[in-house]
């Protein structure tokens, strides 16, 4: 297969397997199909990244219609990089989800609707990958909707009825975000007369001074910021992450917000253009909301009792770091943002997986419930320690690399305030994660309730394997940075059009 064909196959494969999964009667078969798809997508993504690093970007013309009239799929270093992150996280999450269908019967998702769940994950990842590879702004909206609708369905599968409220809240806010994006695209189309990203970016400089263009840009950015859960627009995220089944939370934490970040960077930096947005207040706004996100939501995370909610607030803070990276408007800043995207995907997905395993053996997701689990579940707890250290940014873990890169980029711009925010944010992260570790390792279980099985701790093998793959990746990419950092740097220079 030529690389161009692989580019369409990677999107098409999950899209075709999803309806098959939906009608397959056996959950086990549906899982195997999904796992095989995830594996193929991952291998294709690896090949595509190598091809792009080797010979530069390429594009695929859907239906044989040449762009700018037809829809074009376009792969550059940044797209290939994010595509690889997505498929890798998806593969690990599907391995983790294997326990849902096994004989041991983890009843997080009822067995009867497990095939539907797998179909939804496939549609979701297909939509997310579509956002990454498409070179057409309207097509981006379509994929955004595919991914979002699948996500709402997945969140609503949570065990408690509150999951329905959380899913509905996300549905309302997500739809508002998508609508804002569509209005923005409509206005930009009215001004430029094209939907193709490349052509739009060449037309942008002349049209920038018009009010319609500016309004269109504003709508697009706010719509995507809502999807990304940038600080004041993040209210849907803690609820959605808390109430969704843990496998869904793990998948979303590693993919959904990362793709929204990708879309934001793609639209601002490569479609609107660096010169264009440098003249607007956007970089300053991004820096301010990013800094606020880091400080305020980290502080909020400290106050949480529910572990999943604590980690969800921390996710909003991490999005703040990435947004700061874009706001700096330098190659170093973007590089730091991209590396953080990669490292945080590994870290947070791993943490949510670990919490998911612990919750199998606790009454609820409250902090006191995990007291003493450090001794009772040594392997899971050790993985929590590694991923938590990575989230804080302890040297030797992946999180340290991206925070250091960001700090470096801020210092290079003499943005000492931002540098201070990064340091304070890390200290706050230290506090909320040490609270978790403290309860796990140093508190005796308050009372052994009847709901809590004493001896028979369930730690399904696929789940713990998936968790440790990510935990080791956190260490690996903290010690050997040449791959992640250099690809991110290449992506940043490539997208900014500088050498």
């Amino acid at each position, binding site marked *: 297969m030529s690389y161009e064909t692989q580019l369409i196959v990677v999107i098409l494969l999950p899209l075709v397997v999803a*309806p*098959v999964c939906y009608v397959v009667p056996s959950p086990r078969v549906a899982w195997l199909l999904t796992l095989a798809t995830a594996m193929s997508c991952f291998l294709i993504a690896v090949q595509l990244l190598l091809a792009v690093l080797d010979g530069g970007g390429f594009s695929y013309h*859907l*239906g044989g219609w040449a762009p700018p009239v037809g829809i074009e799929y376009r792969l550059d270093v940044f797209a290939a990089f994010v595509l690889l992150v997505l498929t890798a996280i998806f593969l690990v999450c599907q391995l983790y989800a294997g326990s849902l269908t096994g004989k041991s019967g983890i009843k997080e998702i009822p067995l009867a609707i497990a095939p539907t769940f797998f179909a939804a994950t496939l549609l979701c990842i297909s939509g997310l990958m579509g956002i990454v590879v498409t070179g057409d702004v309207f097509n981006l909206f379509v994929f955004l909707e595919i991914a979002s609708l699948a996500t709402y369905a997945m969140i609503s599968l949570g065990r408690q009825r509150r999951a329905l409220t959380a899913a509905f809240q996300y549905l309302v806010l997500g739809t508002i975000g998508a609508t804002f994006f569509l209005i923005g695209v409509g206005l930009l189309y009215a001004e430029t007369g094209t939907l193709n990203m490349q052509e739009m970016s060449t037309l942008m400089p002349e049209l920038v001074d018009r009010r319609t263009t500016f309004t269109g840009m504003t709508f697009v950015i706010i719509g995507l910021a809502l999807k990304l859960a940038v600080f004041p627009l993040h209210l849907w995220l803690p609820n959605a992450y808390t109430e969704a089944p843990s496998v869904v939370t793990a998948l979303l934490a590693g993919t959904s917000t990362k793709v929204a970040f990708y879309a934001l960077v793609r639209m601002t930096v490569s479609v609107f253009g660096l010169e264009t947005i440098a003249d607007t207040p956007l970089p300053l706004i991004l820096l301010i909301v990013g800094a606020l996100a880091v400080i305020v939501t980290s502080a909020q995370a400290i106050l949480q009792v529910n572990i999943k909610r604590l980690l969800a607030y921390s996710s909003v803070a991490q999005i703040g770091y990435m947004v700061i990276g874009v706001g700096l408007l330098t190659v170093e800043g973007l590089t730091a943002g991209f590396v953080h995207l990669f490292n945080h995907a590994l870290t947070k997905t791993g943490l949510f997986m670990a919490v998911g395993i612990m919750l199998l053996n606790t009454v609820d997701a409250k902090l006191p419930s995990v007291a003493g689990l450090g001794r009772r579940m040594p392997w899971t707890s050790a993985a929590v320690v590694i991923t938590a250290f990575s989230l804080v940014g302890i040297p030797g873990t992946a999180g340290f690399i991206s925070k250091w890169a960001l700090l470096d980029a801020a210092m290079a711009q003499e943005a000492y305030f931002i540098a201070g925010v990064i340091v304070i944010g890390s200290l706050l992260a230290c506090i909320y994660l040490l609270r978790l570790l403290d309860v796990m390792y140093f508190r005796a279980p308050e009372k052994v309730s009847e709901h809590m099985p004493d001896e028979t701790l369930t730690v399904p093998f696929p789940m713990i394997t998936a968790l440790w793959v990510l935990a080791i990746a956190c260490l690996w990419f903290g010690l050997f940075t040449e791959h992640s950092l250099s690809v991110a740097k290449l992506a940043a220079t490539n997208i900014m059009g500088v050498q």
Partner: protein
Amino acid sequence: MTDYLILRVTAKFLIPLILLMGLYVQFHGELGPGGGFQAGVIFSAGLILYALVFGLYRLTQSIPVFVLKVLSSLGVLLFAGTGVVTMLLGGEFLNYNLLAENAVTGQHLGIFLVELGVGITVASTMLLIFAVFADQEGHD
């Protein structure tokens, strides 16, 4: 269920017309206004009217929920399958030109198949949504 004579007779008269209208919009879609989505909605509206008047039970007796599920998947597969066939014929995804000897016939055939897929999926999904919501009274 109370027997509403007027409702029953009018529905019986209207349902075939609605279904026919749905099929017309479906198969005339690439030439006039219409297409798979509209056709699917109209077609399912006819069947939903039937369920409203004669009861959901009689509808799901003739079209079981499982069949609806299979149909909704089949439509997507028909759409994607058309694209895959064009790829196997050596073209791009959904390049209809290759489906027939000459490009115009190929475009006709391609749009026809894709819209048929859309129509099947939309009609069966509408019915599925209706069935799920209408079937709830027994459970709460």
